[in-house]
């Protein structure tokens, strides 16, 4: 069994933040777990899925976050302890239910885990979801380290049941994808009654429009609960106030920023030198404790990862009390950059400034720094060697070349294939201000024109095509993977089909949700708990939606893929091509790694680099010899490079 599920209170071990959150749910006796994979939140669900069978609860990866939060809230209304997890962007997908849920509250403990990504390591935006919890008027906790992540997740279920309200647990990359020592607590064995009462404590409790007062009345009910939330925050052990009498300065921090502050104070040997307020219960924040900090110090530094939410609250409290204090952070008079994630260097420099102490690190001699910069070339993100998307993109690149001057927009989406819009970092791009301009596509990493969020590509393709008019030479394409297809493309698919938008939609079906670490998709024939399920048929879904042109082609058969894409693009009306090829890493995992046979006959190679243009990391090129090569450590014998070589220099014997 995964160590996270061990019934060993007192055991101390290394846990990733996400594992710690899952452990908190296990200790609370979670009954239903649900989510949609999204970095950096995924491992919370992976661990729960792994443990569900052993510990006797239910876990599913839902089709998207909106479904996940609906499944979760349904479970919680019956009284079941439930955890739902998603990434920052996932909360946007779940927003409708999320923003409405506090109007009824819940009966069973419901913990909504959202992992933000300051620095946007894995995300389309840096959005801070704490203000979104505030907007929904839902209590929000934010842990400072892995131990607290476990403790908060555990405690959040009790809080949720006491207040009959979902609890928002905000994490960030540096918490979720960082590890620390965690001491396990007891696993709660008490069984709770799961049942149904439609008038639970209020008439028509679970109908927001319900009598007697409707939704506005429900909003009033929620407002009346605020003092209860605030009282919980005031007494919460997750808020730590230390007043140092006589110190004119103070530091207020939340989440992982608290850990950076503690590191800074330790390094500067200034622990206990100023008043501090560590806030773990971030919405509503503990107003009385904040007022005490305002009374104690004249200058207050606020350190938080994201928006200046606590900083602005502190300013509001100061203003209400008629206090003139210097409150600095990321808001007006920012001393910390207003974008990108916090880091220990940034925090130690502002803390040192606040305390009036010197801090500097060893400066690298100018010459060495210049040389080091010169040697540090980029390492661009690339698709894996033998990835089926390389085949799909090679086919699409051939079709783009064939259509030459005809306008061809390729809309991307979110998944491994989004790397088709990353470019190659070392390549120099010169933007122009023309309204229309064609650019050559030299590698799969520059094939996509747009990448926004899950499901946006196909809808944007419809808009582009409508705006460009009915000229047949204006070709517009969208791509999406199998998991994304079911997650967010179905409504746009219906739209394109119903109104017969003249666009081509390519579904890159590799049978798994790969980018987040190979969670099952509706194509995988397995669920998150390891059980067998049927695969959903993408072509049949398209046909049922009324799509007249639907083709399936093998992503590893370049000729077949090219022909299908070409035919679809020349078709007048909405066309769909499903390019199939299972994720090569999953195939290798199942079938084992074998010594590759593919190699280049250097005497035959003419150095045309058509194999290099596929963008496979296993295909190398020696600029001196002007010969291609195959890296035997990476190659998986997929055969794509063999198909593009014009002189048959790449062989497998």
């Amino acid at each position: 069994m995964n160590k996270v599920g061990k019934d060993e209170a007192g055991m101390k071990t290394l846990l990733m933040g996400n594992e710690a959150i899952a452990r908190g749910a296990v200790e609370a006796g979670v009954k239903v777990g649900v989510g949609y994979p999204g970095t950096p939140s995924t491992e919370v669900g992976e661990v729960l899925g792994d443990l569900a069978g052993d510990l006797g609860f239910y876990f599913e990866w839902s089709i998207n976050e909106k479904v996940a939060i609906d499944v979760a809230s349904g479970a919680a209304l019956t009284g079941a302890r439930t955890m739902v997890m998603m990434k920052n962007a996932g909360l946007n997908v779940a927003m409708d239910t999320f923003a409405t849920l506090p109007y009824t509250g819940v009966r069973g403990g419901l913990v909504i885990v959202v992992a933000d990504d300051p620095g946007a390591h894995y995300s389309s935006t840096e959005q801070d979801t704490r203000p979104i919890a505030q907007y929904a008027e839902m209590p929000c906790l934010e842990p400072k380290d892995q131990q607290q992540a476990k403790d908060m997740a555990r405690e959040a279920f009790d809080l949720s049941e006491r207040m009959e309200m979902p609890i928002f647990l905000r994490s960030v990359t540096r918490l979720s994808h960082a590890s620390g020592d965690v001491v396990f607590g007891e696993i709660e064995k008490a069984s709770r009654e799961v049942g149904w009462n439609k008038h639970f404590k209020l008439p028509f409790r679970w109908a927001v429009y319900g009598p007697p007062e409707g939704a506005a009345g429900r909003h009033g009910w929620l407002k009346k609960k605020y003092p209860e939330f605030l009282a919980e925050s005031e007494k919460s052990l997750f808020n730590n106030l230390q007043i140092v009498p006589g110190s004119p300065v103070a530091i207020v921090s939340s989440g992982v920023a608290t850990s950076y502050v503690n590191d800074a104070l330790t390094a500067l040997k200034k622990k206990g030198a100023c008043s501090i307020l560590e806030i773990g219960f971030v919405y509503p924040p503990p107003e009385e404790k904040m007022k005490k900090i305002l009374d104690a110090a004249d200058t207050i530094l606020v350190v938080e990862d994201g928006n200046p939410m606590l900083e602005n609250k502190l300013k509001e409290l100061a203003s209400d009390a008629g206090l003139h204090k210097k409150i600095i952070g990321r808001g007006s008079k920012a001393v910390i950059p207003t974008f990108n994630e916090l880091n220990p260097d940034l925090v130690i420099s502002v803390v040192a400034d606040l305390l009036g102490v010197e801090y500097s690190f060893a400066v690298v001699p100018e010459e060495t720094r210049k040389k080091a910069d010169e040697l540090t070339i980029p390492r661009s993100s690339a698709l894996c060697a033998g990835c089926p998307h390389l085949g799909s993109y090679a086919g699409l690149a051939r079709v783009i070349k064939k259509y030459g001057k005809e306008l061809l927009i390729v809309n991307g989406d979110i998944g491994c294939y989004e790397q088709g819009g990353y470019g190659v970092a070392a390549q120099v791009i010169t933007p122009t201000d023309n309204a229309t301009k064609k650019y050559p596509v030299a590698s799969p990493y520059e094939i996509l024109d747009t990448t926004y969020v899950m499901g946006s590509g196909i809808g944007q393709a419809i808009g582009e095509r409508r705006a460009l008019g009915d000229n047949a030479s204006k070709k517009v394409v969208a791509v999406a993977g199998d998991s994304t297809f079911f997650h967010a493309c179905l409504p746009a698919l219906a739209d394109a089909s119903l109104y017969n938008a003249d666009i081509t939609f390519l579904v890159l079906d590799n049978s798994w949700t790969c980018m987040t670490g190979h969670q099952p998709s509706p194509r995988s024939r397995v669920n998150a708990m390891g059980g067998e399920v049927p695969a959903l048929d993408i072509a049949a879904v398209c046909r049922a939606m009324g799509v007249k042109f639907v083709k399936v082609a093998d992503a590893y058969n370049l000729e077949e893929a090219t022909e299908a894409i070409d035919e679809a693009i020349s078709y007048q009306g909405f066309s769909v091509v499903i390019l199939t090829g299972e994720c090569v890493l999953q195939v290798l995992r199942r079938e084992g790694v074998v010594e590759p046979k593919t190699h280049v006959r250097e005497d035959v190679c003419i150095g045309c680099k058509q194999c290099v243009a596929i963008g496979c990391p296993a295909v190398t090129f020696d600029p001196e010899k002007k010969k291609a090569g195959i890296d035997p450590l990476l190659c998986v014998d997929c055969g794509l490079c063999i198909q593009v070589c014009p002189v048959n220099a790449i062989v497998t014997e």
Partner: protein
Amino acid sequence: MELDVIICGVGGQGSVRASHILAEAAINAGNRARVGETFGAAMRGGKVSSHVRIGDVYGPLVRERSADIIVAQEPLEGMRIGRKYAAPDGVVILNPPPVYPVDVSTGNAVYPPVDEIEETLRGLAGTVAVVNGTTIAREIGNPRSMNIVMLGAAYGTGLITFDRQILLDVIAAAFKPKFKELNEKAFLAGEKAYKDAVS
């Protein structure tokens, strides 16, 4: 003990695994520990670095120019991390075989000469030790144990002060039992290779 270590390389080389092993062992030896992972979205071939902090530590990230040990499983990544994090009196352990980025194969960049990387790192850190973990792992009979060879080399610095056996126990538990002996060999070979490299 108080120690900041960064293990860096390319996705698939096992640097995240190695960092978790080191931190788990540190905890078992009675310390507090943190690991901060930095890797891109792609599964394979991306740049990866993992910060391991042991002692009176709170946050998961090492400050600039304060890594006591940098374990570079790949030279370009060693350069990338070394230029920012190497402490002036710190140690860099360099595994020299390059893993070429797509920037190089597409002709947009030239891979920097490994000897120049080594020389530049000498200007940044107190000690640079070249340990060919890739070759040593292959000779031992398990090419995938390169990360364990490099972990052994890090132990060879003497800066990790808890008992070797604590690390070996965590390594044994982290892999299938059939790899126990090979990994132990890999670890000890790495430790020796470090000592040979600096002697």
